[in-house]
């Protein structure tokens, strides 16, 4: 099994993701420079957070034209696993691997804090080991996390179980007060129809050690490793 972490000019959570995979998941991992076009040695690719291309034009809009993105599309079409976090989620939406778009937060502010997160679908390769009865504490850090899509897309996300995480309060209720950015239907993370591509605004890689205030993010990476291991057997 091998994980890859994509590095764009402006990525800044790439080392965090690398650290979590190697230290807390215990799997081999390599960085993938954005000019790379061959992903054949990888089983799962993480598109990390940061400010690829300085967020010019729209967050994630220019990264989608990097050579590696064509390879990632093919990688996803082949059924392999792609995990976009924060800016990675924005890039996957811009590239059309996930539906919808991340708009400016309704408050207009960059919001950086721990939020409560509710698991909506445990039946994905990324969440099989996440406790569905626990409210997860995971930080967000973004100015464009306000998930938006049209009614038809929202309905199909609901019907297909593609909404994976929602913002909620400490009791697990997805209230408007607990929505940190105005995201439609409190959506914090979604997957594609075939469930091998996940994007989420919160940073689970920053919540993998008690010392950092929470290790609730660890089970997401471990779920993915477990899924890959069960396929490779």
């Amino acid at each position, binding site marked *: 099994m091998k994980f890859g972490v994509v590095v764009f000019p402006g990525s800044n959570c790439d080392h965090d993701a690398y650290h979590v995979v190697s230290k807390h998941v215990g799997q081999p991992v390599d960085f993938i420079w954005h000019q790379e076009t061959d992903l054949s040695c990888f089983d799962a690719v993480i598109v990390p957070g940061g400010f690829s291309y300085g967020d010019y*034009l*729209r967050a994630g*809009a220019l990264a989608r*034209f990097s050579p590696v993105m064509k390879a990632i599309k093919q990688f996803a079409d082949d059924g392999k696993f792609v995990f976009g976090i924060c800016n990675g989620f924005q890039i996957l939406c*811009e590239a059309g691997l996930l539906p*919808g*778009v991340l*708009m*400016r*937060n*309704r*408050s*207009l502010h960059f919001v950086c804090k721990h939020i409560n997160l509710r698991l909506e679908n445990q039946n994905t390769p990324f969440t099989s080991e996440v406790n569905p009865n626990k409210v997860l504490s995971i930080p967000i850090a973004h100015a464009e996390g306000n998930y*938006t*899509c*049209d009614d038809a897309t929202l309905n199909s996300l609901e019907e297909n179980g593609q909404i994976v995480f929602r913002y909620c309060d400490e009791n697990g209720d997805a209230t408007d007060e607990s929505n940190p950015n*105005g995201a439609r239907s409190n959506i914090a993370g979604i997957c594609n129809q075939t469930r091998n591509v996940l994007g989420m605004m919160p940073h689970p890689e920053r919540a993998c050690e008690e010392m950092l205030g929470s290790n609730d993010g660890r089970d997401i990476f471990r779920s993915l490793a477990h899924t890959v291991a069960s396929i490779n057997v």
Partner: protein
Amino acid sequence: MKAIVYVTLKPSVLDPQGKAIHHSVELLGHKNIGDIRQGKYFEIAFDAAIPEAEASESAKRIAKDVLANPVIEDYTVEISK
């Protein structure tokens, strides 16, 4: 020859930046304004020799593929000589 591209949020999409600008403008004393929406403006300079129809066609494709996100934005293209 230049193509001018305007990218604007679809009318159904909330524009918090436009709202914040509107609020500031009201603080300046302008009370008779219903709404302000923020958009983006691009100038694409083509080689002089390119026919107008071709410039217009490629500017539209650039707007659709890169400059606007069709999920939330509309665009209009004008050619200026």
